[in-house]
């Protein structure tokens, strides 16, 4: 801002008046001060924020607005101003007339005369108390959410862990019963034993899956640079038997390197490829994996020629223990687990499919690794 000296024509005067009106009606505090910190102008915004009227404060030092433990801020700011430096959106605390602390964002600019000499400073202060309060509240809510999430994971973990023991008893002793008394019992009794053993085994699987689901967050490793080609190879190696048995053909485009928990990413690939084989059609399974850049993320796709899924089930398949095919073995936890993994990495997962025409699962991974949760 430059101040012209004297000799203004009418147009210039009108422009100045308009400017003064704008300054006066601004929501922000706009304060002029000399290089020694003496206040020389004070708008209504400043009065609203700090509580002092212009009459009260003009001529007083700016340090009147400052807490005792922050007084060193003023000379620092003014030193910069003297050298022609501007201060942008500096967040600090000031004290109002009533002694209340006010969070403000400061922009301080040098005021120069016609010869470009710095003769003072203009300060624009925005009251950010409300914003700060919201931020604090958000922080608190986040902490609370994190705590309750951790508690929930801990709960699921303990529950599933402690459930194993009695289940082992049911299963073991039913099997022992079968072993010892098989010949002494009739066909009904043998059926009952089989149902009990099967039930216990299924319960065991459910508990294990619940455990795996709850551990995605708590037992995850920090993200590191991960080569998705290697991840693909590992997943395929783990599925070797199923691939050979089904004569499945695996192909893939070049795959990128991302920031990820490698073990978890292998799980994602393995689950999606495994599903593509498990839910195969009459033709031998063909699975193609690719990754396309999309702005700040990679969109991975796993495309198969399997039985496909009707659109009304697209959301349901990602919910834990929801299954569509009772004749296919499994508990229905796989997609729920990998959804959590993808989300932990800051991505999302979805499916496009037509019944009888195969499915394509998509998931995204941020290009720049975000910090591990």
């Amino acid at each position, binding site marked *: 801002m430059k101040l012209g000296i004297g000799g203004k024509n009418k147009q210039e005067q009108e422009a100045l008046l308009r400017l003064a009106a704008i300054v006066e009606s601004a929501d922000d505090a706009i304060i002029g001060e000399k290089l020694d910190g003496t206040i020389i102008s004070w708008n209504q915004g400043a009065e609203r924020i700090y509580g002092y009227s212009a009459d009260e404060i003009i001529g007083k030092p700016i340090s009147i607005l400052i807490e005792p433990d922050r007084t060193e801020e003023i000379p620092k700011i003014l030193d910069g101003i003297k050298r022609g430096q501007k201060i942008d959106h500096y967040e600090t605390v000031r004290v109002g007339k009533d002694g209340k602390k006010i969070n403000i964002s400061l922009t301080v600019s040098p005021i120069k005369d016609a010869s470009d000499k710095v003769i003072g400073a203009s300060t624009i202060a925005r009251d950010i108390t409300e914003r700060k309060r919201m931020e604090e509240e958000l922080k608190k809510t986040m902490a609370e959410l994190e705590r309750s999430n951790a508690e929930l994971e801990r709960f699921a973990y303990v529950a599933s862990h402690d459930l194993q023991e009695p289940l082992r*008893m049911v299963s*073991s002793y039913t099997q022992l019963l079968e072993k010892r008394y098989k010949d002494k019992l009739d066909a009904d009794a043998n059926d009952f034993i089989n149902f009990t053993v099967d039930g216990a085994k299924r319960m065991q699987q459910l508990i294990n899956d619940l455990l795996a689901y709850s551990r995605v967050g708590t037992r995850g490793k920090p993200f590191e640079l991960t080569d998705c080609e290697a991840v693909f190879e590992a997943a395929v190696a783990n599925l070797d038997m199923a691939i050979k048995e089904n004569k499945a053909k695996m192909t893939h485009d070049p795959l990128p390197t991302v920031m990820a928990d490698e073990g978890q990413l292998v799980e994602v690939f393995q689950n999606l490829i495994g599903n593509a084989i498990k839910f195969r059609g009459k033709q031998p399974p063909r699975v193609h994996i690719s990754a396309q850049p999309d702005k700040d993320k990679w969109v991975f796709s796993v495309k198969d020629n399997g039985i496909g899924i009707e659109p009304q089930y697209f959301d349901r398949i990602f919910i834990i223990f929801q299954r569509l095919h009772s004749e296919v073995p499994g508990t229905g936890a796989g997609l729920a687990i990998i959804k959590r993994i993808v989300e932990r990495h800051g991505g999302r997962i979805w499916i496009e499919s037509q019944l009888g025409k195969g499915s394509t699962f998509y998931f995204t991974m941020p290009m720049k690794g975000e910090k591990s949760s």
Partner: protein
Amino acid sequence: MTSGKTGGPIEILLVEDNPGDVRLTHEALKDGKILNKLHVIKDGVEAMAFLRQEGKYANAIRPDLILLDLNLPKKDGREVLAEIKSDSYLKRIPVVILTVSKLEEDIIKTYDLHANCYITKPIDLDRFIAVVRAIEDFWLAIVKLPPRALKRK
């Protein structure tokens, strides 16, 4: 049936609080190849009293093998293991951890405490029996153990 290295039966200490597991272990060892005697203790404090021949265990035998569960009342298996492995009279006794936990941190922690091996109890009965037999076979027939120390110094 073979007998223990000094003529008597092999003495096994099972530290396990679940009676179902105790019985299963009994069942598995009953028809084993090696003549053995199973001593059962149900919590960590009692286990240490047994091993240190304190109180009512003054005449307890020093076992040839310890099967130790991790989650025990009063004093948990990790503490029992740490005490055994820092006691010069007891530390040569092989300790087999037999637990439901598959947790990586439990596995690492117990090996750090010098457990001799770590086994997760299988849910399947036949596999459980196979595991107990394998423990018996390996630790009592294949492995060469140090001679029995007769007295605590």
